[in-house]
């Protein structure tokens, strides 16, 4: 008998969710256990794929036979990398995100629900399953903002749900179009490219456009980004960590799928590249106005995701795998930054960088971790983002010539701003904001896991890159 590992990655969290709701105690530990189980299964899949040299795996189960819809699950290199990132981020979020350890049942239940959504989404082998998990993955963070968030949470959650449900409505319409115009009513993601070619040309354009809008909102890219700063700022620390660490990767993953499988994507790629470059610079100029530390981290998400989008549009091996590596790096980095921002808020009871002064003297470890996070965001060597940036901009130069390097300057500006902020607020020696609380062991463990992974993927990129299938693009 073959063990259905991929199905187990959805069933285990579902069981843990039931346990949390039924027992109503030890909720935090159960959530950690749920994260750990998925992390171990992911590591096992990584190990197996390293041995066999290929990450491809599929599982299929009966689901709605009368509509020809099956419960397909699959793993390939894209998915394996994103699974690694998401399971690590979710594990750390469960372990250390709930700093005050308050409302543990609700927060753990929502986190495990989100885990089901995220894992299922990355694993999904057809668009129907993809959509179901997409919405689960959107609803759980909605409650993380709406119920567990900070002062302005109601408005932020409202904005979030309206944007995201609009995205999922577009996605649903696209999926229904694919369902009816593809031969044999197939929704298989592995064959999306060939299915798309068999559809009428105008339908291909409709579908591509609908999917693009949905993923663009989720990523988010410039004109449709305005839900993100509010949502990430007002969410609980756990919410912010999974929102920017994992939820924005739903869109990135979707973009990877549509740009690598639709043949018509080539025609759109240059325009999308321009939009995403504009988006990166737009966010950089907005970030300079911000004073809230969580908001600053939120805007770095927009910049990084815009650059990842830019890199996907290059449609060559360097660009696409660079974008994939960028998502891996960014998920880990932004999680550690939001965690340290949450700790700073917890310790100093303040998020405004104009008020925070000299906090490195009150909370040394967190300040240095935040500094390490900034190093990682700006792509300093030895961090995973460095590898990602190198790959992405080699891809950009290959595709667009030297003009393709322009978006890199947004990272330079970002780095300049962040070093300025941290110099003023964290390491200033004149005044000291006094600490009102202290952080626990769990947060230290969280820092350790995330930083270790960032370093590991920065030093040993071959873990992932040796499995690259160059024939894909």
């Amino acid at each position, binding site marked *: 008998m073959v063990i259905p590992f991929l199905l187990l990655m959805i069933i285990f969290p579902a069981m843990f969710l039931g346990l949390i709701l039924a027992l109503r105690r030890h909720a935090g530990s159960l959530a950690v256990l749920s994260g750990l189980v998925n992390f171990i299964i992911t590591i096992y899949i990584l190990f197996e794929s390293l041995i066999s040299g290929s990450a491809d795996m599929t599982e299929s189960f009966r689901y709605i036979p009368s509509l020809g819809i099956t419960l397909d699950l699959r793993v390939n290199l894209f998915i394996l990398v994103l699974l690694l990132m998401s399971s690590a981020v979710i594990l750390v979020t469960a372990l250390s995100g709930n700093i005050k350890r308050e409302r543990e049942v609700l927060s753990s239940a929502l986190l495990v629900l989100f885990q089901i959504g995220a894992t299922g989404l990355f694993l999904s082998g057809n668009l129907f399953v993809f959509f179901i998990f997409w919405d689960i993955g959107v609803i759980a963070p*909605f409650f993380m903002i709406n*119920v567990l968030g900070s002062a302005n949470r109601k408005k932020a959650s409202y904005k979030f*749900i309206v944007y995201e449900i609009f995205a999922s409505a577009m996605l649903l319409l696209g999926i229904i179009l694919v369902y009816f115009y593809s031969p044999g009513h197939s929704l298989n993601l592995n064959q999306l490219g060939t299915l798309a070619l068999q559809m009428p040309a105008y339908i291909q354009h409709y579908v591509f456009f609908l999917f693009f809008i949905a993923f663009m909102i989720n990523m988010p890219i410039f004109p449709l980004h305005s839900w993100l700063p509010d949502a990430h700022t007002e969410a609980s620390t756990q919410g912010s960590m999974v929102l920017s660490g994992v939820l924005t990767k739903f869109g990135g993953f979707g973009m990877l799928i549509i740009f690598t499988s639709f043949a018509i994507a080539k025609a759109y790629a240059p325009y999308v590249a321009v939009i995403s470059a504009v988006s990166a610079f737009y966010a950089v100029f907005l970030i300079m106005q911000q004073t809230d530390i969580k908001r600053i981290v939120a805007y770095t998400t927009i910049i990084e995701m815009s650059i990842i989008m830019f890199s996907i549009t290059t449609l060559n091996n360097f660009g696409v795998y660079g974008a994939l590596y960028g998502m891996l790096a960014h998920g880990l980095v932004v999680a550690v930054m939001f965690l340290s921002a949450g700790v700073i808020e917890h310790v100093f009871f303040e998020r405004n960088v104009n008020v925070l002064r000299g906090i490195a003297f009150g909370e040394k470890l967190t300040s240095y971790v935040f500094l390490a996070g900034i190093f990682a965001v700006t792509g300093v060597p030895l961090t995973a983002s460095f590898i990602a940036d190198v790959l992405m901009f080699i891809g950009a130069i290959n595709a667009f010539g030297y003009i393709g390097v322009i978006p890199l300057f947004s990272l330079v500006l970002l780095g300049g701003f962040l070093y300025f902020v941290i110099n003023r607020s964290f390491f200033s020696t004149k005044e000291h904001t006094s600490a009102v609380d202290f952080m626990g062991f769990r947060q230290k463990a969280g820092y350790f896991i995330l930083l270790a992974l960032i370093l590991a993927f920065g030093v040993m990129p071959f873990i992932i890159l040796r499995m690259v299938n160059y024939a894909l693009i």
Partner: protein
Amino acid sequence: MVILFNMAYLSFTIVSALVLMVVTNLVSVFVKSKKLALVSTITLLFAASIASFIIMLSGGSFIFIQVFQADAFSALFFTVFPVAIAFIALLSYDYSADFETFSVLLSFVAVGVFLVTFAYSLIPILVGLEVVSLSSSFMIIVNGKKFVEPAVKLFLLSAISIAIFTFALAMLLPYDSKLVLELAGTSTIGKYLLGLSLILFAGALSLDAAAFPFNLWVPDVYEGSPANITALIAGINKKVSFVAILEIFVVVFAAYKFLGSSLLYSDIFLVLSVFTMFFGNLLALVQKNIKRLFAYSSISQAGYIFIGISVASHLGVEASIFYIFAHMFMIIGAFAIVMWLESKHLYTLDDYSGLNGINAFAAISLTIFMLSMAGIPPLVGFVGKFLLFSSSVYGNDVALALIGIINSFISIYYYAKVINQIFLKKPVRKSNLDRNVAIVVSLCLIFVIFFGVYPQPLINASSLAAKAIVGI
């Protein structure tokens, strides 16, 4: 075993269960026993439901007493409707002023539902619709003088509807002299009387089903009635009129084309569905009273059901049937919680703030019901909407699917507003759900989640039912 699957015996079981229910409930009025009324109602409804379930499994078709027909369509509906009626009985046990009288009227509702679902002729549909709406307006009025207004509104509405219905019957008579539910006239141009009859039927039934121009009674009646009866009207009355719509249009007028291009009833319901969805959703955005909000939301949900009817295909009818059941249990579950909160004098959106603190189970269940109505997977509402929109795309009407999707996007606006209020942190007193309410809510919740995660059985059943009426 042969006797068990004999259609005649099964139909006889259903009829006798209903008759017995009316009799025992009448007896319970005189012996003043609430318990007897509840027990007899629930057990006999359960028996009827089981008998129809066996009819559905056997898959045959059987005409009895000349005007009734037992087939997969009627059997499926009569498997589910009694369960919903039993839920209403359970809910009303502690919340009804005079439960014995209520249960007699409720057994009349069950009889009315039987007449409509098992009808082989148009006359039982007429009588059944009348019985259902009359009984519910009496139910409202037995609660006291301040309920006169909604009762009279419902009564007048059903009177108008029945008048138009009867007129439509008269128009149909030249083409279908026995008034049986079979195809009336083929698609020849020039049968204007038949077209007029079709339009009148559409008017009469859209009054009952609260389609766009005729839906102004819904918010007033929903708001004015006690919440358990609102649940009955939303869960049973309106759904019965959908059954009548399916029987009349998909069977009798299945081939009528006015100008030889497309099916007339399909065009009518296309327009109705678009307007009904927008009307319900847009007005729901500004509601403050929670029952009015659900009233407008259920108007828009009726619009979704019309999508499947207007598509006029096997898949469309199947999707409509699926969504009728889905919405039935979502709305009954939601109104069960609304009823419980009404007994605590909480009526408006502002009153609902901090519901999570009052009772977490009620808050989470209400949230799940609303998410399901908004079409969020993996809940039953999503599967229903997927089927409906798919049927519309399959019928080459992408625009209708787009309108439906835009509408479910609008609806998340007001559902999120309620959810916002529910999870506000406020100092409130904790309170336990009543046992009966908790039973009904958890059963509805199980329905919503189970058929959302694993919809295949319900899709199969709806498909069987659709097969029984499409293309007769």
